[in-house]
């Protein structure tokens, strides 16, 4: 009787790290990654072909994207570049404020039970509140006060005009959105420090500050970076929604909203594309930070 080869089984497929039947090369990844954007473009093209007035042509949108300094004075009097700059400035300030408060507080709450017990109830109550619903009340509280009101106190200059676009109410809700993911990840990071690593350092004669510097901080940073990625995602969502809200006079969200009202849809499309790309870049930057601080983690698991 001829020996029969055992039939190829598909067991243990999930034990492998990645299941892929597509070539795992840069070309392969590019090809796979561009499938959905291509479908998106196809849908857009279908929209153009259908003849609806809502969908601008590729060339109309390309014209806006390729001339970012053009100021459509009749409608918004703000260029695409200026809108992007203002949006990024708000994001940097709101997210930055979230980072510089959440990181130290998270480190403290992770390390000291007293701080944790002080903060935990408030965090649990405040965290589920969507920052967007706080915008009306923040606007009532701060009015149209902006960075310019705080720094210049009323002097007129070009700098004043830029600073005046950065409303305090908006910064507060961005802070609110970015704070919690970073805070919670940082607390979790500190809590998951291995006791054995702390003991090792202490037996070497390390001080508390040295244990913090050489064990707690390097262990926690990748966790904090994961929280930053989530926080940045929340900040983007909150920011664009806030820019659509009445009382704003600039930013990408404002631009796409006003362009919709005036039927200049090429500006709406251009703004959406810029938001997508810039948000992708900010995420990629934090992802790099996450990897450079936490490359050792993948092997630990």
């Amino acid at each position, binding site marked *: 009787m001829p020996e029969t080869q055992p039939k190829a089984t598909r067991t243990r497929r999930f034990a492998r790290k990645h299941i892929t039947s597509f070539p795992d090369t840069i070309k392969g990844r590019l090809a796979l990654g561009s499938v959905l954007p291509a479908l998106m473009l196809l849908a857009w093209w279908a929209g153009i072909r259908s003849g609806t007035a809502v969908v601008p042509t590729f060339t109309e949108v390309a014209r806006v994207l390729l001339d970012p300094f053009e100021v459509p004075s009749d409608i918004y009097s703000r260029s695409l570049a200026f809108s992007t700059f203002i949006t990024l400035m708000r994001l940097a300030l709101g997210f930055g404020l979230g980072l510089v408060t959440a990181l130290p507080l998270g480190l403290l709450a992770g390390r000291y039970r007293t701080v944790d017990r002080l903060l935990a109830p408030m965090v649990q109550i405040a965290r589920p509140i969507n920052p967007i619903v706080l915008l009306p009340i923040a606007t009532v509280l701060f009015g149209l006060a902006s960075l310019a009101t705080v720094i210049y106190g009323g002097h007129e200059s070009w700098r004043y005009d830029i600073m005046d676009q950065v409303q305090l109410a908006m910064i507060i809700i961005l802070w609110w959105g970015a704070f919690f993911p970073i805070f919670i990840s940082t607390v979790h990071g500190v809590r998951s420090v291995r006791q*054995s690593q702390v*003991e*090792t350092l202490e*037996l070497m*004669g390390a001080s508390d500050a040295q244990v913090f510097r*050489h*064990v707690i901080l*390097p262990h926690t940073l990748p966790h904090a970076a994961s929280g930053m990625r989530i926080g940045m995602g929340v900040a983007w969502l909150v920011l664009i929604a806030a820019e659509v809200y009445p009382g704003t006079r600039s930013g990408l969200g404002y631009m796409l909203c006003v362009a919709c009202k005036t039927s200049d849809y090429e500006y709406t499309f251009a703004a959406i594309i810029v938001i997508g790309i810039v948000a992708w870049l900010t995420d990629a930057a934090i992802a790099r930070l996450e990897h450079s601080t936490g490359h050792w983690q993948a092997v630990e698991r």
Partner: protein
Amino acid sequence: MSGAIVASGLCKAFTSRSGVLVEALGGVSLRAEPGNITCVLGPTGSGKSTLLRIMAGLEEPDSGSVLVGGKSPEVITGDIGYLTQQHTLLPWLRVLENIALPMRLRGADAKERESKAREIASSLGLGDYLDLYPYELSGGMQRRAALGRLLAQEAGYWLLDEPFSNLDERTSHSLQGLLLGLVREHGLSVVFVTHSVDEAAWLGDRIAVLSAAPGVLAESFEPALIRPRRRLSEDYGDIMERIRRSFESILGEE
């Protein structure tokens, strides 16, 4: 040259999560002389690791005391080197940085600590691995680097809890040889916890066999064999046999 490690009448019990009192150590007395390796051999749950943690000052005994070079371990800073399966290298530091860490903590300047760490690393055969992270090393190389860190710490007392377990035989034998050389060269006082009879017989100037939980000293051996011990010699076979019999009789009691 360091002093002796003297443990007298150590007792320690833990309360388990379900509220049951578990006695780990039931009055262990032990003396580890400088320049010697004292092996502690015992079955799982005999409190070997607890004994070592108390010696390192990481746990307090319920009764009894430990003196390390005449001092209580809690007041000693930096002179106790402690290595277990968990107390290994820091995963975010390269090999060179890991070895240099104790010197960095002491405040040595960057140039000095780097040249010293390089010297230690190359003496341990790690010269080609300085820029790698621990996870890029084999188990054997990781243990070498951990020993290098203990050397950089300049600790006189080494407390080692199964430091060479989970390695292939050849690698663990070569690390045993390496350790022996370091102990002789630096006059270290070493307590070496293991569950391998062969490891204890080859390394130990003194071999203390602990009973099952709660651990008490069951028997103690001081093999008078010439160093380095030859595993194939008759004398070595004899001492192995005696230790093994002692160890098996403990396991039989369980």
